């Protein structure tokens, strides 16, 4: 019996010939990522037990992305704690403020995260690794055990397979596919139970570049998927080879792999989608949301923060102005992307349009530590979800769309169809 992608990578990392869903294993990760907000808790826990050394400090990657601009005394205190922890633990790969960007984006761009890899992360959007053909498993506060011992227990997830058929229409992007998929799963049209599943994409994937693949990793994660995987195309492999910091060996599912369920999604006729406030499964065709006035817009996050996402947004902002009553925030996914946009003029397009540029990282998508909303205000953004309170007030209404839809809406002052912009 063949193996799915997640079974194969976990078999490789545990030295096993084969694995079955449901088995408990202890994979040896390629690296271990901890984000800024979790360091204090992990350091306190290990200190209280007298654990004063990490199993593999050389594998540990510390990233400041959730709260990059210290907007409070507490954040500044966390910054000091994080820097002291890096020093005490001997962590050299410390991407502090202004040094890397979003931990689920810049490692793919810098050749740290490569096809076929496996890593542990405290944060659940580590599923982005599937864009490049790798897996990152969310372990939450149990990252402390990974730091101390080098691994942790993992149950091998069951795998679902989704075959995409067709080609996206003009003005329709990967985020739209993700929102649409969430709606179909909620309706039962695609009969997937996503909790703790690995989702493999297959079919007509060649037109999905790295940014579009990362975007499509996002919605399944919100539905509970633990891993999302795209078999790396020749173009993805070439991208990885150009910048690889290590040797790598891509993995692909076996042709006779066993899936819990499989389904096909025709993507030809998908309209731009808008997720309504509450949860992404509530998405509607954009015609049902057009005209809703907005106060706030945000482009960025792990799902829409790559260079190509921002270039798409910029194409709708070029030569236009953000509507007078709207504040538009843009958070690039990496410092590399910010530099590239400075060099090729895209930053100027954003600034001339009146957008407010944030440092690379999560932006408002992490508990609205920057750019929050007041009760009664309305936002449209590319955030990972539209849960009440994600951008501050629980009485604010949060809509989601693709980078194109958000940019077009920011200019219009109301939710707008990018095909008419």
């Amino acid at each position, binding site marked *: 019996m063949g193996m799915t992608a997640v079974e194969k990578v976990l078999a490789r990392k545990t030295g096993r010939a084969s694995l079955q869903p449901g088995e*408990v294993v202890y994979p040896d990760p390629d690296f271990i990522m901890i984000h800024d907000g979790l360091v204090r808790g992990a350091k306190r826990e290990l200190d209280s037990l007298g654990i004063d050394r990490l199993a593999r400090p050389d594998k540990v990657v510390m990233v400041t992305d959730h709260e990059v601009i210290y907007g409070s005394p507490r954040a500044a205190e966390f910054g000091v704690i994080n820097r002291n922890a890096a020093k005490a633990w001997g962590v050299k790969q410390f991407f502090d403020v202004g040094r890397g960007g979003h931990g689920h984006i810049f490692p793919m761009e810098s050749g740290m995260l490569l096809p076929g890899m496996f890593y542990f992360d405290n944060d659940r959007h580590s599923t982005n690794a599937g864009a490049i053909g790798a897996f990152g498993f969310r372990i939450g506060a149990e990252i*402390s055990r990974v730091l101390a*011992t080098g691994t942790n227990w993992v149950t091998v997830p069951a795998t679902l397979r989704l075959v995409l058929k067709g080609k996206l229409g003009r003005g329709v992007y990967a985020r739209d596919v993700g929102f649409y998929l969430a709606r179909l799963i909620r309706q039962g049209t695609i009969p997937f139970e996503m909790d703790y599943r690995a989702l493999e994409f297959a079919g007509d994937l060649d037109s999905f570049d790295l940014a579009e693949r990362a975007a499509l990793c996002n919605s399944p994660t919100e539905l509970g998927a633990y891993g999302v995987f795209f078999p790396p195309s020749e173009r993805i492999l070439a991208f990885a080879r150009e910048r690889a910091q290590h040797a790598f060996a891509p993995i692909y599912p076996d042709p006779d792999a066993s899936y819990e369920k499989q389904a096909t999604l025709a993507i030809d006729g998908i309209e731009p989608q808008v997720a309504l406030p509450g949860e992404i499964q509530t998405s509607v065709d954009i015609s049902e949301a057009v005209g809703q006035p907005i106060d706030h817009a945000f482009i960025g996050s792990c799902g829409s923060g790559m260079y190509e996402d921002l270039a798409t947004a910029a194409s709708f902002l070029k030569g236009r102005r953000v509507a007078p009553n709207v504040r538009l925030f843009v958070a690039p996914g990496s410092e590399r992307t910010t530099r590239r946009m400075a060099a090729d003029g895209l930053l100027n397009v954003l600034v001339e349009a009146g957008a407010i540029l944030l440092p690379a990282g999560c932006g408002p998508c992490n508990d609205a530590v920057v750019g929050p909303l007041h009760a009664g205000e309305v936002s449209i953004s590319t955030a990972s979800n539209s849960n009440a309170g994600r951008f501050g007030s629980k009485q604010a209404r949060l809509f989601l769309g693709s980078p194109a839809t958000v940019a077009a809406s920011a200019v219009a002052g109301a939710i707008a169809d990018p095909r008419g912009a």
Partner: protein
Amino acid sequence: MAGTKDFPWLLKGRCYKLGHNVSHAGGVIPDRLITGREMDPQKLIPHLFEESDPGFHQRARAGDIIVTGRNFGMGPKMNGYIAMQALGLGLICESMPYLAYRAAIGCGLRVLTDCHNVTELCETGDEIEVDFQSGQFINRTRDIRKEYPPLPEALQEIVALGGNTGWLKQWWSASKQGAGA
């Protein structure tokens, strides 16, 4: 590493039955304790099931077993399980989101999931017994026996040591001894 043989895997007590889709925030413990990151068992205990059943903690006895329907404890939160563990309770569910199950194990709670239709086999107040190591369920009141998937062997050690922190403590002590030997 520590053996799990002497750990009391068998609980005998009263059934406390809940329905489907009980969320951790509100359904198990008030949201303010979760967002406040309260992890002290003594501070959490008085608030367990407070919103649906005030005074639960005063009536609960060590050995009692919470029996739930599908999709229990939504959200990967630990606060409610810390209180259950400190009270000496057990938990068996028709299903739990994986991360909720993982959180319960991380707190050292005796827990079983995938107990198909278990809520049809008992009512609140029934005298029940659950062996978390073997998966055996017995309802003494109604004379019903059933086998469910046990706690996986690989995870028993974590529960027996009181959860993640207990496990790490034991591991560190063992690795220091190993280094000194």
